[in-house]
């Protein structure tokens, strides 16, 4: 077929344009987060002293500062990465915000807590639940964001998928943090991190496999 003939067909299909990709990403992430949120409320729910902790415990509040400092930059990046002409460059450094905050919090915790309690704080009460629940709650947002990226045209499918995985873990961790009884930054560093790394790896693999266009 000649290219001019192909253009005839493309022009005839001019009215088939889909909604802007940024809107698709926003809706998909919203739906994914909503599904996980409902699942979370149905299966676990926020912890009993949630309201009290929000005003009295700096450690508890920090958990949300940390998870949102991951989720929000990851969302903004994913929205960009869905476009072929987006060049992340230095913007990828936004993802260093959460690790940097965590590092500062760990140092403060080590200074303010006697060394004989470090180990107990890190192990916490419910590490297994954290390891299982964060990946599970990540699933709906991950599928949703991969769907949206599939509608897009990511220049680098593996990176787009990986940041999608980070975003899904950030959403799941934000939900789980409101249930989890362990508030120490040492606990977050040990256990939340594992779920996040796992979801990032899954996202990268799925991205390189399913996001080519």
């Amino acid at each position, binding site marked *: *077929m*000649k*290219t*001019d*003939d*192909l*253009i*005839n*067909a*493309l*022009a*005839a*299909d*001019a*009215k*088939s*344009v*889909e*909604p*802007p*990709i*940024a809107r*698709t990403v926003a809706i998909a992430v919203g739906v994914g987060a909503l599904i996980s949120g409902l699942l979370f409320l149905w299966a676990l729910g926020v912890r009993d002293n949630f309201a009290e902790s929000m005003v009295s415990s700096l450690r508890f509040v920090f958990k949300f500062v940390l998870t949102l400092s991951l989720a929000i930059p990851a969302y903004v990046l994913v929205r960009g990465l*869905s*476009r*072929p*002409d987006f*060049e992340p460059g230095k913007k990828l450094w936004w993802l260093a915000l959460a690790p940097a905050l965590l590092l500062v919090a760990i140092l403060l915790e080590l200074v303010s807590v006697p060394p004989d309690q470090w180990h107990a704080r890190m192990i916490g009460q419910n590490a297994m639940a954290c390891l299982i629940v964060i990946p599970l709650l990540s699933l709906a947002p991950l599928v949703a964001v991969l769907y949206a990226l599939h*509608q*897009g*045209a990511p*220049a680098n499918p593996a990176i787009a998928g990986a940041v999608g995985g980070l975003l899904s873990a950030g959403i799941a961790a934000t939900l789980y943090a409101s249930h989890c009884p362990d508030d120490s930054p040492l606990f977050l560093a040990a256990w939340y991190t594992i779920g996040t790394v796992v979801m990032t790896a899954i996202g990268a693999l799925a991205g390189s496999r399913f996001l*080519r*266009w």
Partner: protein
Amino acid sequence: MDRKARDAEWTDLMRSAIAGDQAAYRRLLSELSPVLRGVVRRGFAGVGVPREDVEDVVQDALLAIHLKRHTWDQTMSLGPWVMAIVRNKMIDDLRRRGRRPEVPVDLSEFEFEGEDQQASIDAHDVERVLGRLSGKNRDIVQSISIDGQSARDVAQRLGMSEVAVRVALHRSLKALADTYQEKKL
């Protein structure tokens, strides 16, 4: 016309096209295709890619521009987006040939000079894929593309609604793009 003015014109045409202006869209694609041909040929210079293979990449890029145009941010200019698409398709093509995917297309400083004004030639890939479509879908695509009929004419001839013809056309174009994908697996 210098590069900036041309990019501004393309940007306007694509905005109109996305708003539903078919004539603007046709003009844009017609202006883009020789530029794409020039970019692909220069990018592949020295790689020894046959002429009809260059045209395959041009057609693959046009299909991607069409099916992914909702990923263009309308507040930005169109040129860098188009170059990102064609660059991606060139890299895919080189990968398929088992070569190192290094394409010298600088997205920030894309050039329109040296474009190829020769008329387009036949490319194999789309032709091959057309053969895989169902009889009716193949008929629709061929009537509209090669014979230049309107969707309404084709609808009347086949006893279908115009909407059904448009839907079939859109699905067939997606199938064409997917077949390029299959080749990569």
